């Protein structure tokens, strides 16, 4: 630690920031696509029909029950080459993060919707609202408020977990931190810098979510 080299951080900073942009990009894509897929999965999970319920339950259990690292490797070496006949680390990263976060957001959706008291539905229906209206105007507004903290948590976890895709050489922040380690064979400089950048990302996201939560309440 005594010979901490700021010069190599200064040299690598532009490329680390470029990597940070990709980290933000793949995390954001994972959040967006994951939420959409998770919404579908969440409703499938709550469906009374076995042909919706069973596949979604399998999906959710599989992606929550296996490590993201294994999923990343499986998508990169298996799924993407199978579909495209070539490898594409960035696409593999987005697909893996999407599939993984969908399983978690599905459960957040389900928990949020099921947390709204049954009496609310009954009351709305007895007022003459249709089931769609009940969902849209009565249940979802209440459920979404309760989902926000859990979503925020999931987004932050996703940003941190996106560092795992460095293993398939997707050129994001962690990948360049590893490159820096490889070039100079030193650890403190790349990893302290990377952790500070990750911290800035997650901390500002949590502040943003807090602000949003206050506004909605």
């Amino acid at each position, binding site marked *: 630690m005594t010979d901490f080299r700021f010069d190599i951080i200064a040299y690598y900073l532009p490329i680390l920031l470029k990597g940070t942009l990709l980290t933000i990009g793949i995390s954001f894509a994972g959040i967006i696509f994951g939420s959409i897929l998770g919404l579908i999965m969440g*409703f499938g999970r709550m469906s009374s029909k076995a042909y919706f319920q069973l596949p979604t339950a399998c999906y959710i259990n599989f992606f929550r029950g296996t490590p993201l690292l294994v999923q990343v490797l499986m998508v990169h070496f298996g799924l993407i080459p199978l579909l495209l*006949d070539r*490898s594409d680390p960035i696409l593999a990263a987005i697909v893996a993060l999407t599939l993984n976060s969908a399983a978690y957001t599905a459960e957040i959706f389900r928990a949020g919707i099921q947390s709204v008291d049954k009496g609310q539905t009954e009351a709305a229906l007895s007022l003459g609202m249709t*089931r769609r209206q009940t969902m849209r105007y009565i249940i979802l507004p209440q459920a979404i408020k309760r989902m926000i903290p859990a979503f925020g948590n999931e987004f932050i976890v996703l940003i941190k977990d996106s560092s795992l895709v460095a293993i*398939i050489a997707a050129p994001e922040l962690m990948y360049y931190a590893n490159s820096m380690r490889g070039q*100079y064979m*030193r650890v403190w400089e790349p990893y302290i810098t990377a952790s500070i950048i990750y911290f800035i990302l997650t901390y500002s996201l949590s502040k943003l979510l807090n602000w949003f939560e206050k506004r909605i309440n």
Partner: protein
Amino acid sequence: MKKTHFLPFIALIMVIMLSACGTPPAKDPVPAASTDAGTASTTTGDETIKVATDASYAPMEFMDLDKVSGFDIDFLAAVMAEAGLKYEVTNIGWDTLLESVKQGTEYKAGISAVSITDERKETYSFSIPYFESTNMIMVKEGSSIKSATDLKDKTVAVQNGTTADILMSKIMGQNSTNLKKFDSNTLALLELDNGGADAVVADIAVVREYIKNNPNNKLVGITDNTNFNSEYYGLIYPKDSDLKAKIDPAIQTVIDNGKYAEIYQKWFGTAPDLTNLKAEITKAGTS
């Protein structure tokens, strides 16, 4: 709640299922495209050859910001210019390299300080050798370790899947828990630095670079010519690749015309001793 039909969501699921049904026909052109690429590489020289590397072996190959750099990369540039081939080097990591080059669909070659071994020859084709190397033991100053046989009962760190791993597995026994296998050489070298291992075994160039970069850590490199034979690096191809015939003469020319010595001087600061390498090339040519 239970009987509710979420029409929009069912519609969404239908869309996804339909698009899934649409996938098989879309998949059809894929095998056709891959055979196209296969024939293209055998008929024309215009196609860009994708070369894989694991850029974590400074000074052989490493990432300088977002540019792959190092001895191997400069050497490859000279060889490809000589052979008149278009190429592109991509850093994809060691395990991905081994897997991709084996399949040979996307990456037609790899350069990454890959030692030519008999085991690897069963799965891959190799170019003629282009670099002489050996494994080196790195220990802390004042260590009692003097040769590879001293390592038998010590804790040793290596990079997984390298020749150092193979050598040390033979000396220490397969699956020895005292042999710590890491994802990269740097991690193995750090393990010693941090006191988690008594020694590291890695390629000589990598160990020297590490010692050079960390002058305050009091590290020593030990060569052991009796237990560690010379190894020779080669370009790695899929089995029976037609690239070998195109690139081998170019490698020979680059070594003979002095371009090789120039690149060697640039990265290692000394002139190369080519006696062993040239003998090995002759051997590889006749066998």
